[in-house]
């Protein structure tokens, strides 16, 4: 546990108010990051207090890690220092919502679930989805840039976040972007915070554009005799005029991991499934059903069927939770997040499986449309050699994707803390790393925010 002087703790308590947790190891355990425990956790209720806390930490040379529901704190390297957890879960208000204008401003601690309910009252939604859906917060989801399965249809946060307010590592309140749907005034500083894992600034407000809820929704599941045919179906969808909300390809291991067995040939190892969700008026849904079935059959589907409402919910929710299922199945589980070109996906799938097998690992793949993939790895036999096999597999994987025609980029999103010390979670550094260091120095010159947690030790 981080040690902080008594006097320091007392001053922090004066700033943070009564909701602070000081020195109580049992309560503070909930804020552990990769085995490191903070000396205090503070729970500010507003942006001004956040700024005061960061200024205090800056002055006292303390390291802060901002968090919301703490569902994604495993992402990133182990912190090099960690003194205070900056828990933003009390900052959970909707600050501005103009349904007529389809714009929204929220505090970072609001959960996606609460926000979904509030927007649904006005027939709207935000295409921001994340694993740990029942507790994940807006701030954490943005900071981790979680891959939303809606990404192909609605873009990522970069596309629908209009602006943010935040507090830099020097404790200055600042903002980037704005509150209207179109705006090119000044630098888009807020875009830097998306996926920054809290290493640049503490987000205190996010402005979004919202979207109307569709009239009808329906999901389809198609089963294929292998990755080639399944992924050719996915590509055919992308190149068709269809506009599905979600398209996810899963190998048999992924279906098994999620407890979703395809109706046909559940035992066949090479079965791949593609889950497609569509939305719109009944005419649009019907058109999708017709065309999707034709495309699926053409690609060689052995089965294509619409899912009943309850079944649809189950499939969509579990596919969304793939990272959670993948990481919770074993203490030695590894989850790799990959961005690749759609055309490279079949090769990527084959290579991933080959590398897993040659290192005696189990693998499962889930490929959301839009050029993403999740690769879950875990040892077949837990034991002493497991970490070594995982480390080998990851280094082989990074070697395979860099310098090949795969054009893939990857990061290890989750792995045992021990493994984090052995490998680079982001693969080899790239030519723009020095620019990232400059950005970090600009926002957080004295390394107050989540030190050591970002790529290259930033």
């Amino acid at each position, binding site marked *: 546990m981080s040690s902080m002087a008594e006097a320091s703790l007392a001053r922090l308590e004066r700033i943070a108010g009564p909701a602070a947790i000081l020195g109580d190891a049992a309560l503070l355990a909930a804020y552990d990051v990769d085995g490191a425990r903070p000396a205090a956790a503070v729970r500010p209720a507003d942006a001004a207090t956040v700024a005061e806390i960061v200024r205090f930490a800056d002055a006292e040379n303390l390291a802060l890690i901002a968090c919301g529901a703490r569902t994604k704190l495993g992402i990133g390297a182990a912190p090099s220092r960690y003194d205070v957890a900056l828990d933003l879960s009390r900052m959970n208000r909707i600050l501005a919502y103009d*349904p*007529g*204008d389809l714009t929204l401003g929220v505090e970072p601690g609001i959960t996606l679930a609460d926000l979904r309910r509030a927007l649904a009252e006005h027939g*709207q939604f935000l295409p921001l989805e994340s694993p740990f859906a029942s507790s994940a917060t807006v701030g954490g989801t943005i900071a981790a840039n979680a891959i939303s399965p809606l*990404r192909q249809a609605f*873009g*990522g946060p*970069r*596309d629908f976040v209009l602006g943010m307010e935040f507090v*830099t590592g020097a404790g*200055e*309140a*600042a*903002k*980037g972007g*704005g509150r*209207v749907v*179109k*705006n*090119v*005034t*000044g*630098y*888009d500083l807020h*875009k*830097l915070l*998306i*996926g*920054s894992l809290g290493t640049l600034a503490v987000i205190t407000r996010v402005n979004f554009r919202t*979207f*109307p809820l569709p009239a009808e929704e329906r999901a389809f599941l198609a089963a294929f005799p292998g990755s080639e045919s399944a992924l050719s179906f996915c*590509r055919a969808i992308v190149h068709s*005029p*269809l506009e599905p909300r979600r398209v996810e390809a899963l190998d048999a291991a992924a279906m098994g991991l999620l407890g979703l067995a395809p109706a046909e040939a559940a035992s066949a190892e090479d079965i791949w499934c593609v889950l497609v969700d569509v939305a719109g*008026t009944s*005419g*649009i849904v019907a*058109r999708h059903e017709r065309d999707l079935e034709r495309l699926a059959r053409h690609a060689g589907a052995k089965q294509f069927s619409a899912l009943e409402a309850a079944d649809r919910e189950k499939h969509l929710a579990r596919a969304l939770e793939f990272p959670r299922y993948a990481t919770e199945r074993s203490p030695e589980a590894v989850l790799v997040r990959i*961005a*690749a*070109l*759609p*055309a490279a996906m079949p090769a990527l799938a084959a290579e991933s499986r080959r590398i897993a097998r040659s290192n005696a690992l189990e693998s499962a793949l889930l490929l959301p449309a839009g*050029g993403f993939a999740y690769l879950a790895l875990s040892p077949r036999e837990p034991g002493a050699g497991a970490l070594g096999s995982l480390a080998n597999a990851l280094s082989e994987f990074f070697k395979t994707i860099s310098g090949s025609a795969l*054009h*893939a*980029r990857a990061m290890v999103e989750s792995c045992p803390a021990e493994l984090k010390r052995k490998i680079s979670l*982001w*693969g080899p550094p*790239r*030519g*723009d*790393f020095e*620019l*990232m260091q*400059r*950005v970090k120095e*600009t*926002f957080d010159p004295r390394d107050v925010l989540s030190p050591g947690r970002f*790529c290259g030790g930033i």
Partner: protein
Amino acid sequence: MNAKLIRELERRLGRDSVLSQREDLLLYEYDGSVEVARPECVVFPRETRDVADIVRLANQYETPIVGRGAGTGLSGGALARDGGIVIGFSRMNRILEVDAENQRAVVQPGVVNLDLTRAVEHLGLYFAPDPSSQKSCTIGGNVSENAGGPHTLASGVTANHVTGLEIVLPEGRVVRIGGKTTETPGYDLTGLLVGSEGTLAIVTEITVRLTRKPEAVKTLLAVYEAVDDATESVVEITCRGITPAACEMLDGWTLRTVEDFVHAGFPRDSAAVLLLEVEGLAEAVEEQAAEISAVCLEKRAREVRVARDDRERDLLWKGRKNAFGAIGRLSPSYYVQDGVIPRTKLPQTLRRIEEIGRKYSFRIGNIFHAGDGNLHPLILFDPRHPGEFERVVAASGEIIAHCIEMGGALTGEHGVGMEKNELMPLMFTPGDLALMRRVRDAFNPTGRLNPKKMFPLGKGCGEVRVQPMPVSSSLPA
């Protein structure tokens, strides 16, 4: 300028790649804005290596550098405010790669926006950002300004269509950021660079997303007897969650001016028209077009016309995209603003603009991206009349102040440049601006890259622009 530097540039790039005679430079002292600033030389690199060498030479001689595409920008972004070297990208105009399978293209910055669409059309693809100047503006310029256009309502602005860049840093180093994949690990430097108005680095290669052409398109023209009915239609369309691909408005004076020039088919006796487009699946287009028609008629549109064929559709769009040229025929000069308001505030905002026009005795035409609340009030004036330009600045200042008061933004797509830099404090606190300056300094520590842009210099508004020049051919988005 240092003659030795010019000689060195000539030696490195060839004499035909360097302009330094006064009469040659005159062409480069303008862009699409009302600003003027003359560079000391203009150079035309052919490849990234040339750009890196130019930048290194400029450093050696401590000379400012400004990138320039087609010079269609509306905020003075491509003008050499502190003199120095303008890098013209007209020779770096190659499409380096079209990857239809992955819907990407890699282009040099001098590629003209519409040329990229033309080059990929046969593959069923296009480049979505469509500023009205798309026949001449370059993708490099689009990236610098984060350009928009009528169809950005549904498909997003330039930033939503760029996945990677090759940049030359002010010290002459070439770096690749982002890539062809949808995302790359690390900070989103591409997101920061797009729209940074040439103040952080010089872009030498751009990887863009290509979009699949929609299966069906329908273009509608809703004709109104009152401006309020048109603006209320926009509010209602937005509230109902209908997102047309484009939703443009022209007020009565503007549509008559355009009609006399382009003969697009806008009824001369109407008070306003909305030009709307829906695209996508055939079924969706039918449904949306019907819904939009119903809203417009409910809001007292006199008529809602649907373009019968491509010819009629092209003509309507020609009217919209050539509007600024048409207006240039009537007035010695005009000043166009680019403020944004929440869309629900359109009716009162247009009424306010009319009041401001009356107060200052200016004709203000309105032709703008109504669907996303991005205004383009055009103030017509004659710069030969003493004091008139100052009054234009005052009137446009009131319009902008209203936009900000409504919770809006200074500029929706034209950029800040040297035109709105003194207005930045309306939207950003000193703290916001200090951080932005530090970001600039992190990339561009000497400030020699596009100096005196975007950030306030501390002069009062109105003192800055003292040399208004007639503008008649620019084509704002």
